[in-house]
């Protein structure tokens, strides 16, 4: 089916971009609703005043500080639901492409498009919405809105005054926080949808700029400014390098047609993928541009050597934001990496991609470095940050196996499925762990392991959930962390044994004949064993150390509900029918990515 009509009048536009439209409506509501008031405008030369309902004295019902959080949560829930509709409706109906000249197609029969809504983009938009939803839910308790806030009494003591001012400040900045969260969601969705490099960059920057502000959001804390400064400077240097890489690719794409035309579209007859495939030997301009492009994505997934800002940013900012950085932001980086690596510079069957050795080396260094650093830290937020670096290493190993070009079509599918599934379940247990750190953070401090001492006695349910999240992060069966790691290792091994002759005489012969990608799987298994030490240490301090604080954990109802939700999802996505559904969704995404 091929439909072409002016873009904005097209019924498919709203239908195919439902999650994005939902988020835009949410953003408009967040701007308008808290500002509704009794303002009037006088018609010039007369005494008539007409009400405009925007500004003036705000209405009591709409200026309630609780409203922004509710709007943002509902928007994200709706966005997630409409993203998941793709998998209910089936692939053929929901694959829609939009090209730069405004043509919009169902089924994507043409190829010169800049936005592509298919199972691959939709599974990522669901991950983003879910991860941001958890962050929002945690922030509702971390930065509570109080209806009963009053200005401080002039005669009260200094500490009471400071507390009243803090409550008022929290009320004032509710709208800002939730607005920025929705901008992050919109930017990330654009990254997942775009098949044009420049559009991808615009989405990346929209999400990143909002994230930089969110990292600095709790500005009364001494560490948040520092965390945001470091994260902002490294982030914007790497995105400048990325953009320079894109401009080099633009020159290269122009030079391929002798400057008759140039494009940053990945697909299409003149697209970068076609130019890449037509290249006989690796041209330096393409290689340099491509390498620079990967710097920015490497920063987003916090791979070595671009990891150095991540631990500081995670430990300096509030825990809900750290959870968003570790799940949503990382998934965004991998969505971009997969799109660019697989669609543009994917290896031909039987020949390896030029980025394979670099990526293979980086993955080993990243996972080992992340685990060693996590072993030696005494700060739980920093530990989770380093573990997030290690997890990036595991996923890069899967990408490297993909680049070896040895794997058959079905193994490639398994590898991409493994990456997508891992990012999906990571949003369950990593967010869950950060939610629990948010609770200790509300009680005072979460920047040292001591804040977790004796949690088993202070709050058994929370402590058990934390322990389950740690086991899932370590990859202990039957939790979802095990399944995702198993899929990655299985994919790598079946990719590499495609080259080795398994029936050869001895094991040593087999080992020397197997492709070196096999050793990535070995290094992953060793690293998983290493990581058990620091994950189990959390369990040890929770159940066997004496608590330094006798205070119970805060009530925080939103966080408790979300922790239980994450716990259930972590357990049921490891085994049984639900995990099968998730794997099927990830497989559908992988098929769509490979088909482009």
């Amino acid at each position, binding site marked *: 089916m091929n439909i072409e009509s002016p873009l904005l009048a097209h019924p498919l536009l709203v239908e195919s971009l439902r999650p994005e439209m939902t988020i835009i409506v949410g953003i408009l509501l967040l701007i308008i609703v808290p500002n509704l008031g009794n303002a009037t405008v006088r018609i010039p030369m007369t005494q008539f005043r007409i009400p405009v309902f925007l500004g003036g004295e705000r209405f009591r019902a709409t200026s309630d500080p609780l409203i922004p959080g509710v709007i943002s949560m509902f928007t994200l829930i709706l966005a997630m639901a409409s993203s998941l509709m793709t998998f209910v409706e089936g692939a053929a109906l929901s694959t829609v492409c939009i090209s730069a000249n405004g043509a919009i197609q169902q089924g994507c029969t043409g190829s010169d498009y800049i936005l592509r809504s298919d199972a691959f983009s939709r599974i990522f938009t669901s991950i983003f919405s879910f991860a941001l939803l958890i962050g929002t839910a945690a922030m509702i308790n971390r930065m509570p809105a109080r209806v009963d806030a009053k200005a401080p009494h002039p005669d009260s003591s200094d500490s009471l005054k400071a507390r009243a001012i803090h409550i008022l400040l929290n009320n004032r900045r509710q709208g800002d926080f939730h607005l920025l969260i929705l901008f992050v969601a919109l930017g990330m969705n654009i990254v997942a949808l775009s098949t044009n490099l420049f559009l991808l960059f615009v989405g990346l920057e929209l999400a990143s700029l909002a994230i930089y502000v969110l990292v600095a959001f709790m500005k009364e804390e001494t560490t948040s*400014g520092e965390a945001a400064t470091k994260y902002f400077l490294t982030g914007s240097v790497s995105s*400048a390098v990325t953009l320079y890489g894109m401009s080099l690719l633009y020159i290269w794409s122009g030079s391929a047609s002798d400057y008759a035309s140039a494009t940053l579209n990945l697909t299409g007859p003149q697209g970068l993928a076609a130019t890449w495939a037509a290249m006989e030997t690796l041209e330096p301009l393409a290689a340099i541009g491509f390498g620079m492009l990967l710097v920015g994505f490497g920063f987003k997934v916090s791979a070595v050597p671009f990891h150095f800002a991540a631990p500081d940013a995670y430990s300096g900012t509030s825990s809900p934001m750290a959870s968003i950085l570790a799940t949503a932001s990382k998934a965004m980086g991998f969505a971009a990496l997969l799109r660019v690596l697989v669609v543009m510079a994917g290896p031909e069957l039987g020949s390896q991609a030029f980025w394979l050795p670099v990526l293979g080396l980086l993955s080993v260094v990243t996972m080992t470095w992340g685990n060693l650093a996590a072993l030696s830290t005494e700060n739980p937020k920093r530990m989770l940050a380093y573990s997030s670096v290690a997890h990036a290493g595991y996923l890069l190993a899967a990408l490297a196996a993909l680049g070896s070009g040895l794997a058959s079509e079905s193994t490639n599918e398994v590898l991409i499925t493994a990456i997508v599934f891992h990012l999906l379940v990571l949003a369950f247990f990593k967010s869950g762990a950060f939610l629990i750190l948010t609770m200790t953070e509300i009680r005072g401090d979460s920047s040292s392991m001591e804040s977790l001492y004796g949690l088993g006695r202070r709050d058994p349910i929370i402590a058990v959930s934390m322990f389950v999240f740690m086991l899932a992060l370590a990859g202990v069966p039957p939790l979802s962390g095990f399944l995702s790691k198993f899929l990655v290792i299985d994919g790598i091994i079946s990719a590499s044994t495609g080259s080795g002759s398994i029936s050869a005489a001895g094991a040593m012969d087999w080992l020397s004949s197997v492709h070196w990608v096999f050793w990535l799987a070995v290094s992953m298994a060793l690293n998983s064993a290493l990581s058990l030490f620091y994950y189990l240490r959390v369990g040890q301090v929770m159940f066997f150390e004496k608590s330094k604080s006798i205070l119970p954990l805060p009530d925080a109802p939103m966080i408790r509900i979300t922790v239980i939700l994450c716990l259930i999802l972590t357990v049921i996505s490891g085994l049984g029918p639900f995990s099968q559904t998730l794997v099927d969704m990830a497989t559908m995404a992988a098929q769509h990515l490979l088909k482009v």
Partner: protein
Amino acid sequence: MIDPGYISGLSAILFFIGLAGAFTRKHAIIVLMCIEIMLNAVNLNFVAVAMQTGDPEGWVFISIAIAIAASEVAVGLAIFLSLYSTRETINLDEVDLLKH
């Protein structure tokens, strides 16, 4: 017409000046200026291609890139201000509470 090769050459020089500055300077605002130099070097590259192809796409990229660079400065300065209000310095060497 100027040879586009010169434009991309100038762009490469500017980019590496910016990159070197971003890694060596210690004052946050000067690092931000270096990042701006890098982003503007990119615009020169787009100009060089857009001049030759005559395709308006390149000019569209430039105008969007300028807008992104401007919002990056706004966000950056706001973050530095919040850093200054708690630490009273924006020298990157002195900002080291989060080392462990």
